[in-house]
């Protein structure tokens, strides 16, 4: 029987402590994780690595989150990767814009880790 390949999640987030806690959380669920601390590095990782999901912060150095999102959605290589936004910016307009640009889910920080896991499971189903 062929072994199921673990899903790969790319975290684009500038808060290192959050990346580390998310990595522990995702590993416990059998996901592989990659991390980028800024937008441009995030875009290049999304192009180089075959990732199944991008967790994206909106307040990023070197290319804000929306720029990263636009870039991912415009490129043929990355436009099918689902994106989940994790942001501290609780703004309805921004949320609507992100959904229009094609994100799968939008969570406000500080988020409920269980809710985050449920959303990821739902997206990667």
């Amino acid at each position, binding site marked *: 029987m062929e072994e199921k390949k673990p899903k790969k999640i790319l975290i684009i987030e500038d808060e290192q402590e959050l990346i580390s806690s998310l990595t*522990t959380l995702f590993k416990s669920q059998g996901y592989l994780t990659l991390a980028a601390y800024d937008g441009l590095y995030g875009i290049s990782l999304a192009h180089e690595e075959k990732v199944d999901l991008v967790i994206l912060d909106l307040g990023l150095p070197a290319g804000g989150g929306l720029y990263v999102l636009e870039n991912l959605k415009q490129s043929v290589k990355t436009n099918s990767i689902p994106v989940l936004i994790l942001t501290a910016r609780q703004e309805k307009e921004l949320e609507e814009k992100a959904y229009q640009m094609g994100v799968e889910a939008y969570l406000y920080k500080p988020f409920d*880790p269980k809710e985050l896991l449920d959303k990821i499971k739902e997206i990667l189903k």
Partner: protein
Amino acid sequence: MNNQDRLDRDTGLKVVLQELEENPYRKFRIAFALMSIIPFLVFFYLLVSRLFTMEILASDIGVILSIAIFISVCGFFVGYSIIKNILRKIILYAVQAKHSDQLKSTFVATVSHELKNPLSAIKTNLFNIMAGLVGSVNEEQKKILQLCDNIIERMKHLVNDLLDLHKIEAGMVDVKRKLCNLLEVLEKQIKEFEAMLNKKRIKFIKDILDQDLSIWADEDKIMLVINNLLSNAIKYTPEEGLVTLKIYPADEYIKLEFLDTAQSIPSDKLEKIFDKFERLDITKEGTGLGLAITKDIVEMHKGRIWVESQSDRGNKFVVVLPRDLRETKR
């Protein structure tokens, strides 16, 4: 004022003048010149009518005319200089207000980022420990961790409330009015509190007649008002108490009453209860900002909110919202 401040001010002044798309100084100069022209016109009239002679100049009329011309010339320069200074002060004030708005936006962005991000990391780490992802945890340790998680939740609410209040007070929140059915908004909110009502075995009476409850309002914000008032009523009402919601629709407005059977608010606190960080019972969960936000939202809708304390037990929070204010700009 140092050189940098002066430079910033002058640059700001230029930006505001550019945004006005016309130079108000020039307009005032023209207006003053026109206002000062009357004595010259009289002089001109006398000249063309050939009425002007040296005798006239030496007579009383001549003296009065000369004084009038002198006053008009002085008036032009003095008046223009006064108005110019006032105008400069107003424009500088606008420059400072603009700068202060930018600072407020930066404040909100900074607070959001600097507080919510570490809170997320703490919350996720707590979850990881409690779920046993980094080693086993005994029941006693779990209880302590749960306590920490509750504190994080409280901090999260406080940060969100502070940001909401700041945005409202800084005028960064618009009222996006649309026609909504208040009954639907109420039903949605009541449903959210069902578990809390059941837990405290509180009886809930909804006194709503089958009437038109349509209102032009910002649905999300009105939902927050109802949420805050219902949540307070349930939170402060003791177990097996009673919470009543009454609605009185009129042609021009809708009146909502939230009655509880909590301890009566002392009369000297009735006004203060809507102040920031004013809390009646600090043992109850809350940030002390909910009612301040509620009042701001009601006032943004040109409505009114107040509280009446019942003599024996209970309080009545009353909200009056105009039905249609589409023409009113905030």
